[in-house]
């Protein structure tokens, strides 16, 4: 199946695109998780602070479907207050 990946700020060099617009399609196995995509792209896990799957905040164990769009954000970009409390599951304590 295929998903679309968008990388931001310091994650941009991990992209697979010569055009440098940081948005690219990625062929994956069925039922792949976000964590596996991050590993596939060789991004150190601690460099991903926020994940949006089709515009909604998710955790790394989320399973992807064909046609999904995932955007990955590094720590220095992650968040204004509303984004933080709304999208970061690890703040759920």
């Amino acid at each position, binding site marked *: 199946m295929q998903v679309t990946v968008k990388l931001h700020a310091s994650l*941009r060099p991990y992209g697979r695109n010569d055009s440098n617009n940081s948005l690219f399609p990625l062929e994956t196995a069925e039922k792949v998780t976000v964590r596996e995509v991050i590993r596939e792209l060789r991004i150190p896990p601690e460099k991903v602070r926020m994940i949006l799957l089709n515009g909604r905040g998710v955790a790394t164990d989320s399973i992807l479907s064909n046609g999904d769009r995932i955007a990955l954000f590094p720590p220095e970009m992650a968040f204004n207050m509303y984004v933080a409390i709304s999208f970061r599951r690890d703040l759920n304590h």
Partner: protein
Amino acid sequence: MDRIFRVNMGSLKVSEEKVTGDYLGLGGRGLTSMVVSKEVPATCHPIGQHNKLVITPGLLTGTTAANSGRLSIGAKSPLTGGIKESNVGGTAATKLARLGIAAIIIEGMPEKGKLFGLAVSKDGVKVFPADDLKGLGNYELTEKLQSKYDKKVGIISIGPAGEMKMAMASIAVTSTNGTPSRHAGRGGMGAVMGSKGLKAIVIDDTGAEKVAIKNPDLFKEASQKFVKALREHPVTSQGLPTYGTNVLAAIINEAGGYPTRNFSSGRFEGTDKISGETMHDIISKRGGKTTHSGCTTCIIQCSNEYVDEKGKYITSALEYETIWANGANCGIDDLDAIARMDRLCDDYGFDTIEMGCTIGVAMEAGVKEFGDAEGAIQLIHEAGKGTPLGRIIGNGAGFTGKAFGVVRVPVVKNQGMPAYEPRAIQGIGVTYATSTMGADHTAGYATATNIMKVGGYVDPLKPDGQMALSQNLQITTAAVDSTGLCLFIAFPALDIPECFEGVIGMLNGCYGLNLTPDDVAALGKKILKIERDFNERAGFSNVDDRLPEFFKEEKLPPHNITFLVPDVDLDKVYKF
């Protein structure tokens, strides 16, 4: 900081008094709102003789505390008709605080057509005639005043928009680079200043003594804790200095909450062309400054200097809100054009958020096409020159919507909405609806402890938990707005407990107090109650705490949802 100066623009007399009674222990927004509440009749005309313009540094301003250079400017708002505190950085707040000044209160009105300035120094406040400065834009005005006084003075001023008393007129404050690029934008404070016949305030803090600290050891320890948190946190140490506040564009757009073409979509296809990353790359390539300290004592440095293709300065601090309002909201993806619009707004003295919102409404009406950058620039010129069309534009999104018969007008209490879609981020919709300030994003940016109390994860697309969330944010924000600290301290405060401890420690050290987090929350509640009471006396009720109906009826792409928080929840925000 215990001196209050009153300037009567009718008699041109200046008097000085000590801070006493209800004004004790307050600074920033707490003090502006208390003075407006006590001294301004709630039913008065905002640009008539009974309104007062109140200018105050925060409680920690003037000390060595990092990021403490914020200034509060308050009055009854010509835009909303309610109470207003407009918050601005730059250099003026620190200079006022170092002169021991807790507040300057501008009262009365001069003879029609007369213009004055104020010179503030260790010798007090003096009025000077300023008819020769009439009609000047903020850039030429500050250059003139800097050559007459000194390069290092701090200047608070209005451009032609303020002189014309337009409801979106801002008050400019000089940045650390001497340009009039910091603005108390929201709510038309420039129109109030213009109605007082006051063109500029020049502040020279030469010879000022250090601000007294009651417990220097405690203050120093707390201050270091605070600085450590700001330097450690990735957003304040890397994200904001590298990409500016526009770091948010990519995230909010991806989340479907980036209002596009007058709030008709939550995602803009041109965001990559105007994002923080792109802006950083353009400024770097042209030799501008991607990072720059706009405000005295700032260690975050979210500001920038945007330059043209030849490397010549256009504007300073091209910000997230400005880029969104005059960019995505108008369907414009040309960063150079947006930079020129920002420069024009700073020069004429317009609020960039209200301007972008208004142009979006004008485009909806067909006055210009969405995406027409040159047309948008022309509208700003019309407003700045006060042509008949410009008089409509200059009075804001609500006024323009009425003039052209538009239904989709994104305002609350007649104030244009900022850069977060309330259908995709429902919590901010509660803040927009219920804030005493009208649609205001900063009224709900807050710090850690209160957020944690709310209880963690709140789904932005669902109504559950949004009321309590917004309530806590608004309470904490009212308190932070009183300290003179930059709201971006909220980023580390969310993750690093020592940050908020540092803030409370600095207050305790500075004033010899024993405040606890609960005391800070109590201060926030008190301020909100005062503001709410003023608005009630001015004629507002719970029916004014609502979003325009289209938010509840039109489904917003890409999530295809409406604003779902019920009115009964909105009515609970002030039940504390």
